[in-house]
């Protein structure tokens, strides 16, 4: 396994989708190659950054508007509205 090949297998490795043998080759390579160790660690850190990205902000008026909708929903849906079920 070359370094270049390894960079293309990183996601499969992290997703535990490599075959037993490929996983072994991957780990063997990582054990010997500091560049690829750094690369794998960078990808892991990338995932961590993404997981801590602050949510999109939104103006407080939207919150009030939605609360009003909730209140009218609570009061009972207008009978003219044909509801389409959202399956889960």
């Amino acid at each position, binding site marked *: 396994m070359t370094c*270049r090949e390894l*960079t293309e297998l990183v996601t499969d490795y992290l997703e535990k989708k490599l075959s037993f043998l490929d996983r072994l080759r991957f780990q063997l390579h990582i054990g010997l190659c500091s560049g690829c160790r750094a690369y794998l660690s960078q990808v892991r850190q990338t995932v961590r950054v993404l*997981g*801590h990205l602050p949510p999109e902000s939104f103006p407080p008026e939207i919150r009030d508007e939605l609360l009003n909708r909730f209140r009218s929903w609570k009061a009972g849906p207008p009978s003219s509205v044909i509801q389409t079920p*959202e399956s889960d």
Partner: protein
Amino acid sequence: MNPQDERRLLEALRNGDETAFTALVDRYHGPLLRLALGFVPGRAVAEEVVQETWVGVLEGLSRFEERSSLKTWIFRILINRAKTRGGRERRYVPFASPDGPDADAEEAAVEAARFRRGGMMAGHWVLPPNRWDDNTPERLLLNSETRKFLEQAIDALAPQQRQVITLRDVEGLSAEETCNILDLSETNQRVLLHRARSRVRQALERILNSESGKDS
């Protein structure tokens, strides 16, 4: 959210508890907006799609059967609305056709110039990546400039890559849930995730290199 908390929240919502609803909006409006931006062009349209999503949530609340988590259910409503909307916005193509940009198989995780071309060490690093400090993610997020740069890197992804990385890495959904919501095969989902992560890593590397003055 654990299943018990979720059941309690659902019950409160069904009983018309306003605090519960506000908490739900605070928790999910931002993530929904981010997700919507992966389907429709522009913030204004995305904001409308999220509003429609909340209407859909209220309409469906009494029938929600908890076969999926509340989060997955809400995200699925958003995506249904966004798809309808994205279809109407004709100049925008959120779903790549088989020969669209996402189908490009030659998109390398790391540019070819970083590896040796020939000889015994062909395919090995010429320029190995640097090890980042352990606190790099936190540090990047604290700086508004680098945060903006990161957001731009996500914006620049092909729509499907952006959708997958948002659900998987930003929102922390499982591969299975993501395939389910976006109607993707497991392999396709993984390929999209791989390309998206590789791109974002590249962007982070550029930020860090320019920070340390070693512009490459």
